């Protein structure tokens, strides 16, 4: 047992390179290792999703998928890197909703979002929850909205920086309830959550990845989930639609892309492999722990991702332009 783990640790990387040399049984693509670019730092929620599916897809493809973190500038550096890469199927990108919002948030992108990529499929859509410091007065979501409208001069809403999930949800909330209040940006979710726990700010809307444990621990108060259905982990938490604000429905969807010009044969192969990975029990369980679920097989397709990206670009263009916030 010990020896097995020990070997596992020390030879973990050696296994990667063995997979390289031991290739040859697969006909045609893929013939060597594939690099999956994640445009965010290692260890973040997007990186976690990428590593989960990359590992399972590697098994199916018979070639290792290596995750490379190319963080910076709200994910646009990594996306730009892939847009310029060879369209041979050996460089792919896993990006989230930021792919769609960056098209408007950044006025000078180095790539044309709708024309620089081929599509593989949707991976997962992480829901968000509106949470507040635990001694915040309102008891339910309608009460919360009324309170925010009434005290628009004094309430404060935290977000993790421009373009972050919590920022997008915040913009959506402001436009949904047609009220302007003070938003407080932080450098990342961690510091924002710390100030929420310390009662320095009033509320925040963030992914279940970041909020579910705090809600379960009773350190923050949860008002509503932004998903179309109630969350499996919090069946008592109403959805925003139930509370009468369906415009606030939003999820942090993740998709896999390839550079423009990648052959259909390759994207279909990757898509099939993605669907298999998403059906894997381990992946389903790991995602459930994060308060999310894999996208259904019908969505893990090139067509579904393309449609999603295009509709989301249009949706966020209105929201972002109304808010008048840009990242460059």
């Amino acid at each position, binding site marked *: 047992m010990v020896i097995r783990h020990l070997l596992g640790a020390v030879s*973990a*990387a*050696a296994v*990667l*390179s063995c997979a390289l040399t031991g290739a040859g049984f697969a006909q045609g693509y893929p013939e060597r290792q594939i*690099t999956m670019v994640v445009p965010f730092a290692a260890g973040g929620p997007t990186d976690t999703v990428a590593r989960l599916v990359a590992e399972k897809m590697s098994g199916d493809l018979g070639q290792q998928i*290596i*995750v*490379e973190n190319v963080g910076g500038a709200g994910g646009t550096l990594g996306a730009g890197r892939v847009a310029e890469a*060879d369209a041979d199927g050996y460089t792919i990108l896993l990006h989230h909703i930021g792919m769609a919002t960056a098209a408007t948030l950044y006025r000078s992108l180095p790539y044309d979002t709708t024309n620089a990529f081929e599509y593989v499929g949707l991976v997962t859509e992480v829901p968000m929850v509106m949470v507040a410091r635990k001694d915040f007065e309102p008891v339910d979501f309608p009460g919360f909205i009324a309170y925010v409208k009434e005290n628009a001069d004094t309430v404060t809403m935290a977000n993790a920086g421009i373009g972050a999930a919590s920022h997008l949800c915040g913009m959506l909330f402001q436009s949904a309830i047609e009220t302007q209040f003070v938003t407080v940006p932080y450098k990342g979710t961690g510091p924002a959550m710390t100030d929420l726990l310390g009662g320095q700010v009033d509320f925040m809307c963030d992914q279940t990845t970041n909020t579910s444990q705090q809600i379960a621990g009773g350190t923050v108060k949860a008002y509503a989930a932004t998903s179309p259905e109630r969350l499996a982990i919090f069946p008592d938490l109403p959805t925003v639609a139930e509370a009468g604000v369906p415009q606030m429905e939003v999820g942090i969807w993740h998709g896999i892309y390839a550079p423009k010009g990648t052959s259909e044969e390759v994207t279909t192969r990757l898509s099939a492999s993605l669907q298999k990975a998403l059906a894997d029990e381990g992946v389903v369980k790991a995602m459930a722990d994060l308060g999310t679920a894999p996208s259904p097989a019908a969505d893990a397709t090139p067509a579904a991702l393309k449609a999603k990206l295009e509709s989301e670009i249009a949706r966020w263009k209105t929201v972002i332009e109304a808010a008048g916030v840009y990242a460059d």
Partner: protein
Amino acid sequence: MTSPTTDRSEAIAGALLMLAAGFFAWQTMDLRIGTALRMGPGYFPAILSGILFLLGLLVFLKAFRSTATSEAMGAIAWRGLLFILPAPVFFGLTVRGLGFVPALFLTALIAAMASMRMKLHWALLLAFLVTLFSTLVFSYALGLPFRRFGPWLPF
């Protein structure tokens, strides 16, 4: 040496500080300043550039009434500057195109040429060993996502 003298290096130091302050101030011009209580992105940099300029001016002025004996600036490592500084730049320019192995080999070789004690054949051997070690450790053992040989190469 009791009468005040001019300390040339101090004067240059002060002038460079003012130059740097000027650069930052110029770059701040496009930024929204805001007010003390509602600061824009330019507020803090504007104040800091101002302070830096003042400090530079003080250093500059003090240079002309220096009581300390002026310290010689010493030799300048021209050969070092010529080979050491381009080494990381070269690595950055080629690591994606040539790939990790050749880029690192050439980087180590360039850096090695900075010393006049280094003979070419020793430099080649050193660069080879460094590359071998790094490729084994970083690429094979740790599995870092570097391409060993890049698309610029024919194979």
